[in-house]
């Protein structure tokens, strides 16, 4: 009996110690924890930003969970997080469901690339119709005559095409199907736009991470991921024919070119689609990604920290984009965003101007 008494005592002590670790920091700590959730598309750069920002302001921690844009939209609507993140802009319906006005704050530009797993990783070219037909399930083999015609120099094997799409609600999906809807009537009618669609064929992967993982491991797979994920996983990125008829590869330059037109006519709420833009150099499947914050913040400390971070992100943060293969925000857009950030209020008073 003495043994179990001591054991219990030790266990109890340890339990108490760890519980104290759980409760005390909350009481005694001067640190603010700001929780956010959403898109996996910008996760590489957001995680870099949040890590760097702890050096800029050690009193604030941003905890970001990449659960997909659909999740970001849902959780910010429910107010279970302090900010959301999405690469599919919220629809009017979704905005109405939020209890208060929500701002879309663009942070970076990214490109959705079509990646694949073939022996020798040849550089492939796709036309819009080819892409739509592959994802509609109409083209099922890599050595289909149409694919071979578009890629005469690549050795396409007699292998089944395994389509990989997102299983979770995704802004990356939104960008991709938005593009397909614009360039292919059949896709627009059959499948349509959304962060979650009824895919005609394919496997589901969770997050950009899941899709890259699947494509990486499955010979013959084809999927769509953000450029950073393709590069870090050494997956090939294909060239897509843009509106001007040129085949462009995804890169910072072509992504920036895609935003050039939109930058001149940016709507005030920043909800704009950059897919299939005009321009010789423009990459056809690019997009802004947005942070979703409420206009009226409910907590002074968190709200101030949020706006300060946003200012930092759209200026200083842009320096980290190149390494991670995101394109920085165009200069005109940055000025507009600054004005928007100044509209974020606490109890009616703008947070940024007050500083």
């Amino acid at each position: 009996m003495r043994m179990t008494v001591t054991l219990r005592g030790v266990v109890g002590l340890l339990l108490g110690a760890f519980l104290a670790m759980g409760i005390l920091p909350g009481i005694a700590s001067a640190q603010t924890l700001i929780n956010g959730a959403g898109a996996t598309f910008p996760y590489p750069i957001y995680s870099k930003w949040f890590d760097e920002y702890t050096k800029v302001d050690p009193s604030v921690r941003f905890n970001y969970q990449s659960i997909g844009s659909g999740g970001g939209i849902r959780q910010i609507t429910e107010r279970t997080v302090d900010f959301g993140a999405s690469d599919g802009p919220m629809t009017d319906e979704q905005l109405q469901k939020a209890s208060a006005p929500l701002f879309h704050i663009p942070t970076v530009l990214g490109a959705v690339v079509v990646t694949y797993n073939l022996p020798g990783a040849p550089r492939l070219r796709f036309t819009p119709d080819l892409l739509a037909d592959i994802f509609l399930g109409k083209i099922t083999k890599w050595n289909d005559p149409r694919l071979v015609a578009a890629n005469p120099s690549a050795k396409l094997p007699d292998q089944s095409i395994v389509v990989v799409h997102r299983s979770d609600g995704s802004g990356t999906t939104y960008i991709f199907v938005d593009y397909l809807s614009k360039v292919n009537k059949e896709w627009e009618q059959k499948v349509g736009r959304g962060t979650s669609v009824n895919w005609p064929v394919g496997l589901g992967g969770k997050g950009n991470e899941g899709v890259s993982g699947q494509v990486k491991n499955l010979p013959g797979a084809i999927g769509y991921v953000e450029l950073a994920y393709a590069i870090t996983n050494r997956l090939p990125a294909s060239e897509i024919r843009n509106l001007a008829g040129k085949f462009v590869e995804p890169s910072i330059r072509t992504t920036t070119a895609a935003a050039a037109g939109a930058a001149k006519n940016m709507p005030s709420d920043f909800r704009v689609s950059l897919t299939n833009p005009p321009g010789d150099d423009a990459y056809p499947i690019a997009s802004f990604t947005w942070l979703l914050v409420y206009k009226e913040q409910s907590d002074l400390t968190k709200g101030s920290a949020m706006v300060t971070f946003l200012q930092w992100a759209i200026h200083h943060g842009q320096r980290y984009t190149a390494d991670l293969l995101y394109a920085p925000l165009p200069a005109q857009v940055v000025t507009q965003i600054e004005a928007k950030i100044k509209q974020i209020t606490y109890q009616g008073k703008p947070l940024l101007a007050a500083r």
Partner: protein
Amino acid sequence: MRGQRRRVVNVMMNWLTALSAAVVVLPLILILVFLVYQGASAVNLDFFMNLPKPVGEPGGGMANAIVGSVILVGLAACLGLPIGILGGVYLAESRDRCLPWVIRFLADVMNGVPSIVIGIFAYTIIVLPMRRFSAVAGAFALAVIMIPIVLRTSEEMVRLVPASLHEAALALGIPQWKVVLRVVLPTARAGIITGVMVAVARIAGETAPLLFTAFGNRFWQLGLNQPIAALPLQIFAYAIAPYDDWHRQAWAGALVLIALIFLTSLTARIATKGRFGGVR
């Protein structure tokens, strides 16, 4: 000869069932060995000391997830153990007509409910009103899973206390409640602790209910009403990601998790070794 055939069948069945046992046990052992091998090559000091790092940067760890899991389990125990143990005592001691049978049935039913359904429950009843993901919500979900297990094992263990002990104490004029607290429970203590440890081992590995309650946290937790990291959650997130470094960390996390669980189960076993001899 008929006898010969029967003998052959006997031997054959002996071998066939032995084969099934081998076919079952061997792959499971191989899985464990594989896990230990992958995990051992991945575990390093960084893993135990560091917080997760951004994608592509080396040296990340799961320190906060390990501590987070311990906190969640501890909190769940605080919520679930009183109800479980007292409920078990009730089932064993009570002379009520209807309620014990209902409770027993419900406990058995709840034992089989998928943990993800319990997660939905915790989300609706705690996360939504609180308007945030939190350690409390996660611990609540784990407690709900824990209660039926602890309930039934406590009942069993209290029943095993010899009636003579109980009756002797009553005969001496001690009130019922003191008999239970000072005689019955201390005698059943070792067995109850075993049941508790089994429940703890079970909830330590639960991932599904934490997906939308505890949510995960890349930093040290700052209080129980904030999202918190947990080892199984982190393992899951890293396993489905494409980065090799994260895969490595997932294996390390799996090894740590399984070591903790096995340790708990083993301790439970040692605590009852020889005490209640042929209970199992």
